[in-house]
């Protein structure tokens, strides 16, 4: 925060109006939103508050009804379609609320997709790069699986790998953990923190309160307007993850020690205890879930 940061995203007076059957929906009602290089921002807000709409505009997937949007000093709402396509390809990695993977196409080929449309002229091995991106999200061993052969969390990670494969400077994620359990969510945010540490600017939409501790700044939307914008010191997702894993192991051990009997029932009990622990972590308390995790870990 000491040195002058470059502004990556700058929207002023952005509105998005959907008109359907005479009624107008103001999904965005004049949003001024600014993100500097290296920031890690979470956009929160109730369902229907306009989070996805804003993300789509910021991600150059949609045009605003009114207002200007400057990305890296370029007024993108004035650009024509091909230029926007190239920006999406080169600068932005977008993770969709509903994965949006190509069906009947392997994870590797899905990740490879943005590279097919790379017009930068750089020479590289497509397959190798895609494989590396899959390694980053921990799916190196699932490269040949099709989306319907992957779990929700794995599909989400394929989508993340696809967003990362072009080495974008800006990563936009619309509810990247919406379909994941809390542990995997923490994993994903750990990955984001790592990427952010490497200098990638990240904007994440989420409505899960527990994960917003991992970002540096929280912005809240309500009825298409920005109502809150706060800086915070993020928790380390990596450390939390370690604690969760430690807690899991403890719980398992505890179950094994207390139950004397058939192996079968011991296993069942271990599972029960495991679930209880998870619930504890997920449970939202005003004091913040982090405390629970600490208590458990200690």
């Amino acid at each position: 925060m000491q040195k002058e940061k470059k502004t990556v995203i700058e929207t002023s007076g952005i509105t998005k109006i959907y008109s359907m059957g005479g009624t107008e929906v103001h999904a965005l009602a004049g949003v001024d939103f600014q993100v500097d290089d290296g920031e890690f921002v979470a956009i929160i807000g109730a369902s229907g508050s306009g989070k996805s709409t804003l993300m789509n505009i910021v991600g150059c997937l949609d045009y605003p009804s009114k207002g200007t949007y400057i990305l890296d000093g370029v007024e993108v709402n004035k650009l024509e379609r091909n230029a926007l396509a190239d920006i999406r390809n080169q600068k932005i990695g977008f993770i969709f609320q509903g994965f949006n993977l190509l069906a009947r196409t392997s994870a590797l080929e899905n990740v490879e997709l943005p590279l097919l449309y790379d017009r930068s002229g750089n020479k590289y091995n497509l397959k190798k790069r895609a494989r590396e991106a899959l390694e980053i999200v921990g799916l190196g061993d699932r490269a040949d699986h099709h989306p319907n052969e992957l779990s929700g969390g794995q599909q989400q990670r394929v989508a993340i790998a696809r967003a990362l494969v072009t080495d974008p400077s800006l990563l936009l994620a619309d509810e990247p953990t919406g379909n994941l359990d809390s542990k995997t969510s923490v994993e994903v945010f750990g990955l984001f923190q790592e990427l952010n540490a490497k200098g990638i600017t990240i904007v994440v939409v989420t409505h899960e309160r527990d994960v917003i501790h991992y970002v540096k700044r929280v912005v809240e939307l309500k009825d298409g307007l920005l109502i809150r914008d706060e800086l915070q010191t993020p928790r380390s997702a990596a450390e939390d993850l370690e604690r969760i894993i430690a807690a899991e192991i403890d719980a398992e051990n505890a179950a094994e020690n207390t139950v004397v009997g058939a192996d079968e029932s011991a296993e069942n009990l271990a599972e029960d205890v495991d679930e209880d622990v998870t619930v504890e972590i997920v449970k939202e308390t005003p004091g913040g879930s982090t405390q629970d995790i600490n208590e458990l870990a200690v």
Partner: protein
Amino acid sequence: MTASRLLVVATKSILKNKMRTLLTMLGIIIGVGAVIIMVAIGQGAQSRIAEQIQNLGTNMIVITAGTSSSGGVSRGSGSYNRLRVRDAELIAQESILLSGVTPVVTTFTQAVGGTGNWRTLINGVGVDYEYIRALTMFDGSFFNQRDVRQMKKVAVLGWTVAENLFPDGDGVGQQIRLRNVPFTIIGVLNPKGQTASGTDQDDQILAPYTTVQTRLRGRSFISQILVNTSNPNDIPAAEEEIAVLMRESHGLAAWEEDDFTVRNQTELAEAAQGTTEVMTLLLAAIASISLLVGGIGIMNIMLVSVTERTKEIGIRMAVGARGSDVLTQFLIESIVMSVFGGALGVLLGFGGSTLLSRFMGWGTEVAPDIVAIAIIFSAAVGIFFGFYPARKAAALNPIDALRYE
């Protein structure tokens, strides 16, 4: 995207949706195949008829009784204006353009001899008949001028008759009885096959017309006169010459209409050709319907896959594909499918035509222009319906394409 990369993407996409690809191509395959087979049958029939008419004899002119204008049922249909041998004799004597003239006297009777009996057509003809009808001998010889003059009881058998009465091929030199009159077989003709209308040209016995008239018919008029010219260019002039000679022979006054009809082979050919052309056209029409149905099939499959593909287009655009990338990919997909389907259709067409000729004995002839038309049509349908939805989707904002339901 480079062209080669686009080709790879398009091919992958085609292979990914094997069912859709197969169904789309099936429409093209069946459409193209059906058109080729149908038209091949029509054209085969047409050229077979042309060949058969040629087979009748070269530069032949046929003179029959009755006016052509009133369909042969002329007012004065008495015996006086029938054709007579003397008409033929007059034409033979006076004509300068004709190279062969023969009267034809026709009757049906039972031929008894050899292994049994056989009801067949007896044609009493002159010696020129062999040359006019371009007949060739399988065995023995045709009768000569002296046989005709002396009303010899000699006969030349058509292939079918010879096969039925003398299956061992030893007919020449033996006797057959026609209306109880014994005839000596002096020759057997080579087979000529069927006429366009399906009559067996080999199911006949030839004998001198003089003999047939006196021994078998007992009437003085004749069925027709066949003549020919040595040069096809002489035919129109020869026809006029014949008309003049016939009017003279029949003693017609200037104001009287012709009581005979002169037709040349070209006219016969045209009449036959006309029918087969109608048939070909009919077959082509049926085939076109199948091509159209194939086209509709392609259209349906393409349109049904639009939703899925619109989403795919949205995804591709979201990760940086330009509209032109998407369009080119879809165009290549469509072209690859159409060309491949078209090629398979051509194979099916050729295969089907060959099978039909081999096992059904139908003459078929694959016309290259029809092949081209069929392929172009189905390719156009495939390309249009593959490309059109893609173009619509590529014009959307990526987010709208992604949301498309």
